[in-house]
C-alpha cells in the first residue's frame, strides 16, 4: 500500500475552517465504514492536538435533526440511521437475512452466552435441557455476535463461546457492564439461579 501523506495539521487554514475540515473528515470516515471506527484510527485524520471526543460532540450537534446519528461502542464510533426510520428502511428495501433479526429462541441462547460466557455447547445444553442446534450457533457466528473463547476443561477440550464487539453494537451496549444486572433480573423472576 502506498503511504499517502495526509496533511492532518492543516496549518495554512484558519482555525475555524481547520476545525470544520476535521469534523468533515471524521464524518466521511464514519460514513464510509460499516464497522465501528476506533479513536486511534480517527486520530490519524485530524491534528495531533485535536480531541476526537470534542470533534465527535460537534459532529453530533451538526447531525441533530438528520436521519442518522453517531453511536459509541467500546471506544469506537459508528454512524447509523436513527431507530425511528427503521420501518421506512424496511418498507423500502427487502433486507432479507442481513438484518439482525432474532427468533425468541436465538435470543435466549445469545443472552445465555452473554451472561455465562465463556460457555460451551454442552453447558448450553444443560441450561436449555436440549442440544443447541449447530446451525443456530453458526448463525450467531455469521452475524458476528459470538466468537470462540477459551477451551472448556472437558473431554476433547471443546470450544466455549464468548460475545463480540458486534454483539455490543447490535444491542446498543457500550460494554458488557451495560447488560441488565443479573440480580435485578433474578429479583424480577426473569432468570433462575446461576446454572454454573
Amino acid at each position, binding site marked *: 500500500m502506498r503511504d499517502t501523506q495526509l496533511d492532518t495539521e492543516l496549518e495554512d487554514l484558519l482555525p475555524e475552517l481547520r476545525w470544520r475540515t476535521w469534523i468533515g473528515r471524521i464524518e466521511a470516515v464514519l460514513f464510509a465504514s460499516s464497522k465501528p471506527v476506533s*479513536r486511534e484510527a480517527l486520530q490519524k485524520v485530524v491534528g495531533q492536538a485535536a480531541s476526537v471526543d470534542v470533534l465527535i460532540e460537534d459532529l453530533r450537534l451538526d447531525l441533530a435533526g438528520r436521519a442518522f446519528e453517531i453511536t459509541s461502542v*467500546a471506544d469506537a464510533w459508528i454512524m447509523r440511521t436513527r431507530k425511528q426510520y427503521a420501518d421506512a428502511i424496511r418498507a423500502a428495501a427487502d433486507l432479507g437475512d442481513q438484518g439482525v433479526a432474532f427468533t425468541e429462541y436465538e435470543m435466549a441462547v445469545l443472552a445465555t452466552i452473554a451472561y455465562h460466557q465463556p460457555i460451551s455447547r454442552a453447558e448450553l445444553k444443560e441450561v436449555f435441557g436440549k442440544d443447541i442446534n449447530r446451525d443456530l450457533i453458526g448463525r450467531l457466528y455469521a452475524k458476528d455476535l459470538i466468537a470462540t*473463547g477459551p*477451551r472448556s*476443561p472437558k473431554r476433547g477440550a471443546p470450544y466455549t463461546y464468548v460475545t463480540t464487539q458486534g454483539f455490543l453494537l447490535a444491542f446498543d451496549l457500550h460494554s*458488557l*457492564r451495560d447488560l441488565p444486572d443479573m440480580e435485578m433480573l433474578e429479583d424480577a423472576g426473569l432468570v433462575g439461579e446461576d446454572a454454573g
Partner: protein
Amino acid sequence: MKKAAPPMETHPIYLPPLPGWVTQNHSKTSETEQFLSGASLAILHVVLVNPSDALPSQGTLPAELLRNRLALRAAEACLKLEGRRDSEADIRDAYYLARAGDDLGPAGEMYVRWRKLSAVVLKRKDWLPRLKGCVSEGVAQELPEWIDTTMDQGAGQGGSPVAQASKMVELVMAAFPREEAAALICGDLILARALGWSQPVPLLGLHLKRRALLASPDELVLACHQATTSGAQDAVRLGHDLTRRAQRLREVAPKLRAKGSDQAVALFLREDAVLPSTMLAPRIQGTSIPMTSRAARRLCDRLVELGVVRELTGRSTFRLYGVA
C-alpha cells in the same frame, strides 16, 4: 518403588508479623482508619522489600507469585462490581485454558488487565503507556492530566499516598462511571507510585465496594483507607504464606531429578497456576528447555506427593497446579 519422602528440613524463617493493634477492631472514625492504613502499609512495605539478602533467616518472598495471586483476587472483585459472578476458579480456567487465537472472554480479560498492572515497573520510562494498556482508550487519553492532578493534590496539600490514590479513583469514576475496574487499577498504581514501590500491588481492587465508589470525595477517601488496610493485611498474610511455601519448594528442588526441574520450579514460583500440558511441555514456559507431556505430568505428581504443590481444580483432566 516409591520411597517415603524424608522428613523435610525446615529452616525457621522470620516474617514481620501483623501486630494485634492493627488487626483488632477499632472505632470507625476517620482518624483510626488513617492510622490503620498507614500501619498496615508499613508492614506490607517490609514484606515486599524482602531484605533476605541482608538477613538470610528471612525467607525470600516470591513477589511475582504474590502479585499474580492478588491480581486474581482483584479480578474476581471487579467482575463482581460489574455484576458478574466468575469465581477464582472460573477466572483461572478462562486465562490458562485459552489457546492462541481464542478470545479470553470477560473473566480472562479482567485477569489480564490486573496482571498487566502488576507487571508495570514504575521506575522504567514506559510505565505510563503500560498503564494505558490496562484501561480503555477513553480513560487512557485522560490519564496524563489526571496523574498531574493527583500529584498536585498530593504535593500541594500534603495528601497521603492513599489520598492521592483516592483522588485518582474519584477522577476516573466521575468521567467514566461504569469503569470501576479502570478506576481501581489506576488507583492502585498511584498508591504504589506514591509509596515508592517498584511495582503496583493490587490492594484497592480487592475491597472497594460499589457504594463507596459512588460516594462523596470525603467518604471515598475514608473507604480507600479501609480498603487499603484490608488489602495490605491480606497481602501480608498471603505474602507470609507464600514465602513459607516457596521456601519448602526450594528445599525439595534439589531432590527432583527430572531435566529442567529447576526451571519448572522457577515457573511455579512465578505463576499462580501451571497447566503442565502447555506451560511445561513441549517447552518450559519462558525457556527453551524441552519437556515431554509425560515428564511434565510426572513432575507435577511428584511435587504434589512432596506436599509442595497442590492440584487446584479437583478435576481429573485439565489439571492446574500451583503453590498453595
